[in-house]
């Protein structure tokens, strides 16, 4: 293709057979094609291969003096219980006397996100402090659920969130609502 005009044969006069001069030119087009194909392949594989890292900071276990703990206002606390079947159950306030909820939602933009966004706007107006989100994964939730909910925290830019341990009464609530299946 790099060489479009070719000598049309047969235009020569005379009966003398000339030995054709060996061409000093090689058609490199195919070679270039191949090289670029390989370049593309290597470029894509190097950048795509690298996984991403999501940073998680856990609260310190504080084994030495467990009495020394910070009390947070119930009115600002939103607890998310991660159940099975990719569902979340959330409530506001203390477990015994929830201000709102518990309510079951899914993950993603039609599930927990509108709730979080609404609370993030509402709570600072009502109480003057930021919303505190406590994530409590149950034993029946998967790693995907945990990553999804942490991802959601990054998307809605929640200022304070932590991963906590689920309590037995909370598990009972999940069981009651059918979110504690194998």
């Amino acid at each position, binding site marked *: 293709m790099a060489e479009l005009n070719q000598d049309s044969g047969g235009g020569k006069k005379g009966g003398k057979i000339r030995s054709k001069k060996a061409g000093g030119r090689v058609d490199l*087009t195919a070679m270039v094609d191949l090289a670029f194909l390989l*370049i593309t392949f290597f*470029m894509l594989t*190097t950048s795509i*291969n690298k996984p991403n890292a999501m940073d998680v900071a856990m609260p310190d276990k504080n084994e030495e003096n467990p009495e020394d703990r910070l009390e947070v206002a119930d009115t600002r606390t939103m607890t998310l219980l991660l159940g099975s079947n990719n569902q979340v159950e959330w409530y506001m306030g203390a477990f015994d006397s929830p201000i709102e909820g518990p309510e079951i939602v899914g993950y993603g933009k039609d599930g927990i996100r509108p709730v979080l966004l609404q609370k993030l706007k509402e709570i600072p107006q009502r109480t003057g402090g930021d919303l505190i989100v406590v994530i409590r994964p149950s034993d029946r939730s998967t790693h995907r659920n945990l990553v*999804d909910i*942490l991802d959601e925290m990054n998307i809605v830019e929640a200022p304070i969130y932590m991963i906590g341990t689920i309590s037995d009464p909370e598990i009972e609530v999940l069981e009651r609502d059918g979110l504690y299946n194998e």
Partner: protein
Amino acid sequence: MPKVKVKRASTTIDMTAMCDVSFLLLTFFILTATARAPEPLPVDTPASVTQVKVPDTDLGLITVGDDGKVFFGVKDRNVRARMLELMSEKYSVPFTDQERARFSLIESFGVPVRTLKQLIALDANAQTQPGLQPGIPVDSTKALSNELFHWVYSARVATKELHNVEMRVSIKGDADEKYPAIKKVMDVLQSQQVNKFSLITSLKSTVE
């Protein structure tokens, strides 16, 4: 009047320079591409919108998958060798220099310390056979029975000794792994005051 002959322009393009350039680039990309070693425990990581890439150096990687099997690996070869030294002291399992050298080539492993010798003796292809390695024993204590605790601890000590930086720890969990399996690993990290770590995810293609 003489006819004016239009000289036909040659359409030949010299491809030599282009060929040179493309092969130069090709060589560059081949050399920079890091060959991905086959993993003994392939996992399917969950997706997230995080764009932060995993660091290449001073990283300890804990892989959790296949119903709670735990594997551990460190990126740097010298750290791996030093980590094994520390572990062999702790568990009084001696390793020869040759075994240490072979161990430093293993990207990630999941066997108890007592059977590590057999794993090292295998050749590289056999080592990564799926299902061969049973996973590192983990429990909630700080005793010798919690081998993951001591592996991570030794790796951190070794990284500090050799590079004088804190080792970063990443957890690569299978998306369908139940939470308790991940929790167990997090507890091990927290029991040695590693409260910051990262979860490895793949990139979600679109923001929902």
